[in-house]
């Protein structure tokens, strides 16, 4: 198209019959538009996942090599992952339930004869981290979304929203490092906390579950606030006034009218916080100690120092299973579209 545009007649003449036919065919446009991405996603995303899935049925040889010939394939990694030595499936389920109950209760009761495998404990702990991070993000984030979307003066709403998104664009690792600085011994924060009774000034808060939780909430809370903000924006607030005219007080109007209407945002936000929090790798690695490593760290370790690739692959697909369950729950109770 350098300068001169050919007239329609010239253009039609230069087109051979085949090309014209191709352009006329309704599938040509689809194929041209979709094939490059389809090729890329299948070759460099789906096939690698399939390879990993295949590995998860393999075995580890005596010298750390991966045995994936047909004679080695089986569910051994998954049974190693889920089933404690000598336990039946019913035992396993019961051990797991008992362990969860015991870790929620503040005191110990003896419910089961055994414990789930360390891998299952780690998985449940990761889910726990994900759930707590989601709940905290909701508790902190919902009021913020409400204020920004409803109560803030109109001319500042965009600015407030941009200020929530802005850190999301700034480097993830740098923000984790900033949290590390604040939680370290003798930092501004830890010294300030020393002013409270019963707190030793300057004591480090790093390498703990608390530090991991602060990191998770700090990084992912915008993903809770934005969907909640979006769904609060769409609510017709005359409904709230109608409820109050009909005798509801402010709390009832919120609980029965506004909150249910904002549920799509809450559910979308919960998914967007839960998934990356449960699968976190960098945050527990940098902020956590030995008691706060998560399944992501376990997977990385199996593919690194521990050198048990099939077990790591089985761990990866367990994590993927958790994500799928979360998404299924979302599609059952949330609106149909993701993002």
């Amino acid at each position: 198209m350098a300068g001169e545009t050919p007239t329609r007649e010239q253009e039609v003449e230069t087109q051979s019959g085949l090309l014209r036919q191709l352009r006329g065919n309704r599938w040509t446009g689809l194929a041209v538009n979709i094939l490059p991405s389809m090729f890329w996603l299948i070759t460099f995303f789906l096939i690698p996942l399939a390879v990993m899935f295949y590995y998860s049925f393999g075995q580890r040889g005596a010298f750390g090599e991966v045995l994936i010939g047909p004679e080695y394939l089986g569910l051994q990694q998954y049974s190693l992952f889920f089933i404690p030595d000598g336990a039946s499936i019913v035992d396993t389920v019961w051990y797991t339930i008992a362990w969860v109950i015991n870790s929620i209760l503040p005191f110990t009761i003896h419910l089961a004869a055994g414990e789930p495998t360390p891998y299952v404990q780690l998985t449940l702990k990761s889910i726990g981290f994900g759930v707590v991070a989601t709940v905290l993000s909701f508790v902190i984030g919902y009021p913020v979304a409400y204020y920004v979307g409803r109560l803030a003066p109109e001319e500042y709403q965009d600015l407030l929203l941009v200020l929530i998104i802005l850190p999301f664009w700034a480097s993830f690792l740098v923000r984790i490092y900033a949290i590390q600085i604040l939680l370290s011994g003798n930092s501004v924060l830890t010294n300030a906390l020393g002013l409270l009774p019963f707190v030793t000034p300057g004591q480090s808060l790093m390498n703990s579950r608390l530090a991991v939780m602060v990191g998770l909430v700090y990084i992912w809370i915008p993903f809770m606030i934005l969907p909640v903000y979006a769904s609060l924006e769409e609510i017709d607030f005359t409904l709230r006034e109608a409820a109050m005219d009909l005798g509801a007080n402010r709390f009832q109007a919120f609980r029965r009218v506004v909150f249910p209407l904002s549920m799509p945002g809450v559910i979308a936000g919960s998914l967007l916080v839960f998934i990356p929090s449960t699968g976190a790798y960098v945050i527990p690695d940098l902020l956590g100690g030995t008691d706060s490593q998560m399944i992501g760290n376990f997977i990385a370790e199996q593919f690194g120092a521990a050198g048990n690739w099939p077990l790591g692959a089985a761990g990866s697909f367990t994590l993927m299973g958790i994500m799928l369950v979360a998404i299924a729950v979302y599609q059952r109770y949330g609106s149909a579209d993701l993002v």
Partner: protein
Amino acid sequence: MSTETPQRTWLSRIRSRLFRNGGTILAVETLLFYLFLYIPIAVLISLSFNDSRYALVWQGFTTKWYTDLLAGQTVARVDPDAAFTALVHSVEIALVTVVVSTIFGTMLAFALDRYEFPGKRLFTGLVYMPIIIPSIVMGISLLLFFNIVGMALGLHTAVIGHIAFDISFVAIVVLARLQSFNHTLEEAAKDLGANELETLRYITLPLLKPGIVAGALLAFAMSFDDFVVTFFIIGNQNTLPIFFFSMVRQGITPGVNVVAALIIVVTMSVVAVAQWFEGPIW
């Protein structure tokens, strides 16, 4: 509500009073939230001017870490040359990734918006997956794949991996724009004698530009900032996040503070400027 006991009315009176002052409470909570969001960043930036080797306790203002690093001297194990090489790698990877994934992703968005085809729902699911699955799973599965097909790891494998997740980000952002697109404009152009390419060039692309720009910016940020996927598939090369990660693991030092402050100030200003020109991104 007829069954309300005295306790419940008492409780609801308190709740109601709380909700009457709700505006103030929410404003305070929101203020605390913004402090939570920005205090770590502010502390980080101010500590990069701290005149102390221990980097955490405030001793006085200095710019010597900046001048030393920018003059090419190593400050507390942070080698500025290595940091610069890593930065160049990051930019190279991000630029190639953005070009490829913006073109492919935009075409993909067109395909998903304009055509119905068998298996579309399944394929749309595949497009969303790279965004949803944990990056550690994506990184390690790519590592296994490159191992099996015998590709040497390096910057090119990192580019391949980045494109694999960035296509999805671009496609979803552009798709959102396409779905609010007024198709009658294209029909009008065709009625006035434009052919497909002219319609695309003069009508469709200009109208889609904000979506494509937003998609490209997001793709750049995702590629530039990615640590986990890159970490597993880049071999022994460094990008800025990987360089930074290894520094952070060795502890908090004035040199790391300076690098961190520079990264955060530069990225946030670039985004702020982009917001200014393009309107809200995302």
